[in-house]
């Protein structure tokens, strides 16, 4: 945790609640984006992100200053997501996807947006834990050690889930985008 964050935490705990905003503003995009990647629904992502910030404010006194504040926030977000119950492509998500996607024509070449949606939909094939590990390690580029710290699991467990997640992703991508694989060869 850097000095500036430490000072802001002190101020909030000292009763100056307005110091909370500059403390969490650098992470507002990260939290919302990660929440969206977890649930793939904008409204649910906002709900998760909001609850994360509420809990961070409520439990700021228990934050261990030796740890990274960013990792602490990510840990809370993962807990919130798990406590709300990971929902794989619920009604809201499907509506959102339907609104974004044009009807698929097998003859028509996929647009960039469709490719993006189809690629991201591969994440739905992962279990909640695999998704968490994959997003933190492969998308957020956290190290294995940091991922383990955020998820409160061992580094070995991270590697096991990561291996499974990559295996599934590769299978799904291969099924849906044979061309992508062919282009690489």
């Amino acid at each position: 945790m850097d000095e500036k964050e430490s000072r802001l935490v002190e101020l909030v705990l000292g009763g100056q609640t307005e110091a909370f905003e500059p403390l969490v503003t650098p992470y507002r995009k990260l939290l919302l984006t990660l929440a969206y990647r977890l649930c793939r629904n904008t409204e649910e992502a906002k709900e998760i992100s909001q609850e994360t910030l509420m809990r961070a404010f409520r439990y700021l006194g228990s934050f261990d200053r030796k740890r990274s504040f960013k990792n602490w926030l990510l840990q809370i977000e993962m807990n919130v997501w798990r406590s709300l119950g990971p929902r794989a492509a619920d009604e809201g998500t499907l509506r959102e996807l339907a609104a974004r996607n044009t009807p698929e024509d097998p003859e028509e070449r996929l647009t960039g947006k469709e490719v993006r949606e189809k690629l991201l939909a591969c994440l739905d094939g992962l279990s909640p834990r695999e998704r968490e590990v994959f997003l933190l390690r492969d998308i957020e580029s956290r190290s294995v050690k940091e991922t383990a710290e955020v998820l409160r699991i061992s580094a070995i467990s991270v590697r096991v889930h990561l291996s499974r997640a990559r295996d599934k992703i590769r299978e799904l991508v291969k099924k849906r985008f044979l061309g992508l694989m062919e282009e690489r060869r």
Partner: protein
Amino acid sequence: MNCSRVRKWIPLYAGADLSARKARRLEMHLERCADCGREIEEFRAALDGIRAVAGRETLDWPEAEWKGLMARVKSEKPGTRQVSPLSAIPKKAWAYGFAIILLLGIAALILRSILSPPAAPLLSEIITATPAQPSRSLKTDEAPSARYLRDVHFRVRTDRTEALDRATLAAGPTPEKTTQSLMSMTLVSQETGLKVHWTFNRNFEWKEKKP
């Protein structure tokens, strides 16, 4: 090294998460196995695709919503829950602490058994070793002779009877709770049946009693 073993490592190798030792072994295998090389390429293509798409996709709060959220958060009671001082102690320290306490406990038990004074002889053992003798008609005018001693009975009476093991006591007659630290000795002549009864106190002062 065969392909099936190497393929277990490929997902981690594709994302540069395999240990250096395993990575070297896998690379040696790749030099002569084109199939595994193709598989690695497939993994990398899939990962690069997802990373590129997900990396571009970022969300941010609309400013008004963010301000509203911050106002709601600040209206809450700020976090004052402090970390317990005990939680600052690492788990390893707890484990070592418990191990040391356990070892000290065991050492104390061992030392206690070594240093404690030896227990008094078990009354019950002595008593059970001396079954009651049938009374004989005695001729008190006959002189006792050590050569003809048929039997010697020892009886120890002690105030430590409560401390004796109940299970052991149950095997023999119930000890009498009488004056403490007395030892009595009965000498019976095999030839004449003369019985002499000596009683010793703690200071080995003795009394003789002839029936």
